[in-house]
C-alpha cells in the first residue's frame, strides 16, 4: 500500500490536502531535497512536486528516475508554469530517439 505526496510552496499545494493527499509545504531547496528523500524512503508511490520547488533539486529527482517508485512528477505551481515539466518530457524523447520528434512543430 502506497501513499501519494505533494511537495511545494504552501499556497500551491494546500488544496490537495482536501483530496486526501499528504502535503508537505517547503520553502528552501535543502528542505525540498530532504523531504523528497524522506518520501522516497517511506513508501510513497507518487510524489507531485511544483516546478518552482523542483527546479533547484533536479539532481535529487534524478536519483529516483531509475527506481520503480516513487514516480516524481512535476506539476505547475500557483505562480505560473515555467514549463520544466514539459521540458522533461521533451528530454526523454531526445534521450530515446536522439532527436526531438514530438515537439519540434511547436517551436
Amino acid at each position: 500500500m502506497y501513499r501519494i505526496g505533494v511537495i511545494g510552496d504552501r499556497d500551491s499545494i494546500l488544496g490537495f490536502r482536501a483530496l486526501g493527499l499528504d502535503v508537505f509545504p517547503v520553502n528552501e531547496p535543502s528542505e525540498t531535497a530532504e523531504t523528497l528523500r524522506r518520501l522516497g524512503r517511506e513508501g510513497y508511490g507518487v510524489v507531485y512536486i511544483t516546478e518552482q520547488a523542483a527546479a533547484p533539486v533536479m539532481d535529487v529527482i534524478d536519483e529516483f528516475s531509475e527506481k520503480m517508485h516513487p514516480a516524481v512528477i512535476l506539476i505547475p505551481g500557483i505562480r505560473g508554469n515555467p514549463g520544466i515539466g514539459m521540458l522533461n518530457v521533451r528530454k526523454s524523447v531526445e534521450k530515446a530517439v536522439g532527436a526531438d520528434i514530438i515537439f519540434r512543430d511547436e517551436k
Partner: protein
Amino acid sequence: MALLQVNPTRMELARLKKRLQVARRGHKLLKDKRDELMKKFLDIVRKNKELREQVEAMLMKAYGSFLMARAVMSNEVLEEALMFPKQSVSLEISTKNIMSVKVPEFHFRVENNDASNIYPYGFANTSAELDEAIGTLAEAQLLMLELAQAEKSAQMLAMEIERTRRRVNALEYFLIPQLEETIKYITMKLDENERGNLTRLMKVKDMMLEQAHHFREKQKAKE
C-alpha cells in the same frame, strides 16, 4: 580497426567464428528490441504530452479559483477548512512488463463515505471559489495519476532504449567488424602458412630427387 590479440590457429579461428555468429544473432535481436521499444515509447510519450497539457490547464484553473478563495477568506478559516480531509487516498502499484522493462501501473482507491460530497468543510464559512478549486482538483486527480504512470513509464523506457541503442551500436560498429577482421587475418595467415609449406615441400622433393638420381651430374656428363 584494431585486431584482437590472438594466435592465428585453427582453434582460435573456430572460436572466433562462433563468437561472430553469436554477436550477429545478438545484434539482430537487440535491434528488434530497440525498434519495438521505440514504437511503444512513442505511443506512451504522446499520451504523456497530452495528459500533461490537460493536467496543467486544469491545475492552473484550480489555482485561479484558489487564489480567489484566498483573497476573500482569511488565512485561518482557509487552513481550518482544509485541515481534516474527508477522503483518504491510497495507492496500489503493480508492474507491467513492456519488452522486459518493468513499468509501474498505479491503481488508486479513494476512501470516502460519500462520493458526492468531497468538501471537508461546512459551507457556512467558506467561499464558493474554494468549492470550485477543490472540485477542479478532484477532477484533475485521476488525470494526474494517469500522467504519473505515463511519465514514469516514458522515463524508464527512454533509459532502456538508450541502453539498448548503445549495445546495438557497440555490436554493429565495434565488435562485429573487429571479429570479422580478426577472422580475415587468421584465415590469411593460415593460407600463407599453407602456401609456405607447399613450396617447402616441393623444394624438398626436388632436393630428394636430385640426391637419388643425380640428374644434374648426368646432364653435365652428357654435355
